[in-house]
């Protein structure tokens, strides 16, 4: 600990506790439960679901404990002290100079999302006990659900990007497994694949981004903080240190954001989310509304300094995140108008709300966006579970509002009330939770100077109110139609839409427990989660109720990272360590922190300095008026069109060409699916496949045949030339040679005495000659 200069203060050590220190148990428990469910689940009395629920509940307890202790930690910090996250890391494996570790990074954001995920997972698992009773793959469903929760929890508290990536991918895998839970139906399998591949397209960006960040930041983080370039803390500090090359960080930010586009269903990779509704409703409510799709938003919020610096948030013009978010809000809201399937309406609504979160993050409204994650999880999950309740007990597994629903408010009161509460929260009506989060986003966007985007946000609010009213009307009001009217013939299968089926027809395995047909309220295991969630949808907004003053802004206090410089940041401020901070002027640095705007003189910054809009009731009133306008307009139109069959409205789109075209455009989802699948994928896949086939037949096989032919010719040549001519010739010639030698030598054996004598004496003569010559 350094004592530097005269203005140093020794600040109190930050409080910690068992739950904070051991928060890494939160994903471990579901992981172990997953393994156990796979191994022994089928033999357990409740087929493994008890393990799932128990593990989720224990994660919830651990998360809530960690949250409580985090609040204490925050309270124990001084006014301008940076509340250090509780970081523990262990080295996992080393390879080629890279050190991959696992560990936890607990701060306000992670604790918040941990609680949300654990809570909603627990409720959804309890809900699934009833909803999927008797399902053909009951055990595996719970296993996948548990694994998903474990993966997401691991991702949330990851302290380095490698563990983050691991959790991200586990989530993608579980999403695939769960969407395709009833894969016997081809459309479900296709939807699962579509989800997986679309998200995968974005994941390339994640890998690229992580790599760029690692290679850019590693040197700086090792030197200044003693951590590797994968560490989230390190990357955040590096981004704000003025050190990074602006091109590198911008490219990294864009790459990471591409991953967010895929995962969080932003335009243009949003096409998978509506199709993902093919999965069972608990899956839709857990994954595709409150938790998994939020992972992209979480990534941006987590590595906010990277995006802040890389994409110049709070700069003068609009940045990529804001633009994408704004586009997403509007186009998905428009698409929600033409859906007949209630889950699809909710899916598009989710996409639209995610657009809001992205818009908020892009505009520098970090806290409102994160708070919106919190509140949106509750009311959206409630809405989905409500839709599931309807299908389970009333519309006989159909999700088609126009055919099989209507007038259900009389028979399903609890579902109706919770639905209404959640809808109002979604629309952002005071005092429901959505008001405190969504309207804060719009407010802060405007406050930071992006007026166009604020108007977009308001338009989105209008449209949200409108399509939700339409859906509510079709479902709960009017006259009962189809299955809701008691037509429960088992072969009234809805003709499927061209692009997906979300009817949870699963050969009637999952039946509601009430054997008497006819719409009725669902059982307790379904309605109790609904009620809990609706209470939260109503009340969770008060955790950060900006209108009521600073004291009510609890989230801001607990969650938002403080933009102060931290000196001697190598110590992470664990329990028992006192942290010395040298602050130039402690009183004035509240709004003059250099973090995010300039390189810190000494020490490091972990979060950029952001602004918060001052709440004005006038602005709130304006947005409320817009919302009510939307509701009213939609109510009038819906009632006239659907119930009273006003002749001016019925068949309007068929009569008026322009409206008809617009309707068709929307129904075909802007032909984006056509573009992706038929044009992009086919134009790449077919030629590649054809080329590969051509290559195989002509080149590979050609080589093979050519090789065989040449071998044949070679062997023929060898036979003729070498074998016949050379080898045989040698053999023949040696024989001939011997014969000729014999023939040549034969005359010496003539039998003629005189010849023998001649030879003898000639030899003697020559010998004599030689002797004489030698000796003289």
């Amino acid at each position: 600990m350094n004592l530097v200069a005269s203005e140093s203060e020794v600040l109190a050590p930050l409080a910690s506790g068992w739950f904070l220190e051991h928060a890494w148990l939160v994903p471990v428990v579901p992981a172990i439960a997953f393994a156990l469910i796979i191994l022994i689940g089928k033999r357990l009395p409740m087929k493994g679901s008890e393990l799932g629920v128990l593990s989720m509940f224990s994660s919830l307890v651990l998360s809530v404990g960690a949250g409580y202790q985090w609040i204490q930690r925050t309270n124990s910090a001084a006014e301008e002290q940076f509340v250090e996250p509780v970081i523990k890391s262990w080295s996992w494996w080393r390879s080629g100079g890279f050190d991959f570790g696992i560990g936890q990074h607990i701060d306000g954001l992670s604790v918040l999302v941990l609680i949300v995920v654990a809570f909603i997972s627990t409720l959804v698992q309890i809900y699934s006990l009833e909803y999927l009773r008797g399902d053909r793959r009951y055990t595996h469903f719970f296993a996948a659900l548990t694994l998903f929760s474990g993966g997401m929890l691991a991702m949330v508290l990851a302290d380095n990007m490698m563990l983050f990536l691991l959790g991200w991918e586990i989530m993608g895998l579980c999403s695939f497994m769960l969407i395709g839970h009833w894969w016997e139906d081809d459309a479900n399998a296709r939807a699962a694949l579509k989800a997986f591949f679309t998200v995968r397209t974005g994941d390339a960006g994640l890998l690229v981004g992580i790599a760029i960040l690692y290679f850019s930041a590693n040197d700086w983080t090792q030197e200044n903080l003693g951590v590797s370039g994968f560490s989230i803390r390190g990357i955040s500090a590096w981004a704000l240190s003025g050190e990074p090359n602006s091109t590198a960080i911008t490219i990294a930010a864009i790459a990471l954001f591409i991953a967010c586009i895929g995962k969080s269903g932003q335009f243009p990779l949003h096409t998978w989310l509506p199709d993902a509704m093919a999965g069972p409703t608990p899956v839709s409510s857990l994954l595709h509304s409150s938790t998994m799709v939020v992972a992209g938003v979480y990534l941006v919020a987590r590595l906010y300094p990277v995006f802040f610096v890389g994409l110049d948030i709070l700069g003068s013009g609009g940045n990529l995140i804001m633009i994408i978010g704004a586009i997403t809000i509007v186009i998905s809201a428009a698409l929600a108008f033409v859906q007949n399937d209630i889950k699809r309406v909710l899916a598009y609504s989710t996409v639209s709300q995610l657009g809001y979160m992205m818009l908020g993050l892009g505009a520098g409204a970090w806290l409102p966006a994160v708070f919106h994650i919190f509140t949106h999880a509750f009311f959206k999950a409630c809405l989905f579970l409500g839709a599931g309740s309807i299908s389970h007990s009333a519309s006989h597994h159909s999700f088609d509002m126009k055919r099989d629903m209507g007038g259900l408010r009389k028979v399903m009161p609890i579902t109706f009330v919770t639905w209404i509460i959640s809808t109002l929260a979604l629309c952002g009506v005071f005092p429901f939770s959505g008001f405190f989060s969504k309207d804060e986003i719009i407010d802060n966007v405007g406050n930071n100077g992006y007026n166009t985007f604020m108007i977009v946000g308001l338009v989105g609010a209008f449209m949200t109110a409108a399509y939700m009213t339409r859906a509510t009307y079709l479902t709960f009001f009017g006259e009962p139609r189809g299955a809701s009217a008691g037509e429960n013939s088992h072969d009234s299968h809805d003709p499927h839409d061209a692009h997906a089926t979300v009817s949870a027809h699963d050969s009637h395995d999952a039946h509601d427990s009430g054997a008497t047909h006819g719409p009725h309220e669902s059982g307790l295991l379904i309605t109790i989660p609904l009620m809990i969630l609706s209470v939260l949808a109503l009340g969770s907004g008060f955790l950060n109720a900006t209108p009521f003053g600073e004291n009510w802004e609890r989230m801001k206090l607990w969650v938002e990272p403080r933009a102060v410089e931290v000196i001697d940041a190598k110590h992470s401020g664990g329990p028992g360590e006192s942290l010395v901070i040298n602050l130039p002027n402690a009183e004035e640095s509240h709004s003059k922190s250099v973090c995010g705007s300039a390189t810190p003189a000494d020490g490091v910054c972990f979060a950029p300095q952001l602004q918060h809009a001052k709440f004005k009731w006038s602005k709130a009133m304006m947005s409320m008026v817009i919302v009510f306008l939307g509701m009213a307009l939609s109510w009038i139109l819906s009632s006239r069109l659907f119930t009273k069959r006003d002749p001016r409205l019925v068949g309007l789109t068929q009569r008026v060409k322009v409206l008809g075209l617009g309707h068709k455009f929307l129904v075909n989802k802007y032909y984006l699916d056509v573009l992706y699948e038929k044009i992009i994928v086919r134009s790449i896949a077919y030629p590649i496949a054809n080329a590969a086939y051509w290559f195989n037949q002509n080149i590979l096989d050609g080589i093979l045949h050519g090789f065989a032919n040449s071998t044949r010719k070679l062997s023929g040549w060898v036979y003729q030339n070498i074998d016949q001519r050379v080898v045989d010739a040698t053999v023949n010639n040696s024989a001939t040679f011997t014969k000729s030698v014999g023939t040549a030598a034969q005359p010496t054996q003539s039998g003629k005495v005189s010849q023998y004598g001649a030879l003898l004496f000639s030899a003697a003569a020559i010998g004599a000659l030689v002797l004489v010559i030698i000796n003289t």
Partner: protein
Amino acid sequence: MIIAALRVVTTNNVVHAALWLVVVLAGAAAQYILLAAEFVAVTQVLVYIGAVMVLFLFGTMLTRARIGTESDLNNSYKKLGIPVALVMLVAMGVALLGSFGDEKLPQTDTVVSTQEISDQIFGPYLLPFWALSFVLLAAVVGAIVLARKD
């Protein structure tokens, strides 16, 4: 003597060849005497001319060799024989010249006596003498065996 020898090998008449051989043998005997080897000379005349030549003539007779000149008695190797003989002669001549040059024989007035020869024969060379007697015996027996009419 040399001429006689030449006539032996070149004449076409067998009987003439035999007679020329007699001349050669006689001349050889004369040479022996010049060489102070009287006993050998006499033995030569007695054995060679007396017995061997008679044998030759008898052999000629019994083999119906035509009396008088007849066809060529030389064979195809005649052409080879001349160079061979010449080469030998040259070789031997060179050797002799080289070895002995102008050496003269020692002058002696006494001839080698028979006694000395017999001392040799029955002394150191007794064993060859016996062997020789066997040879003669074998020759006689052989000749009889070969020549009898079977």
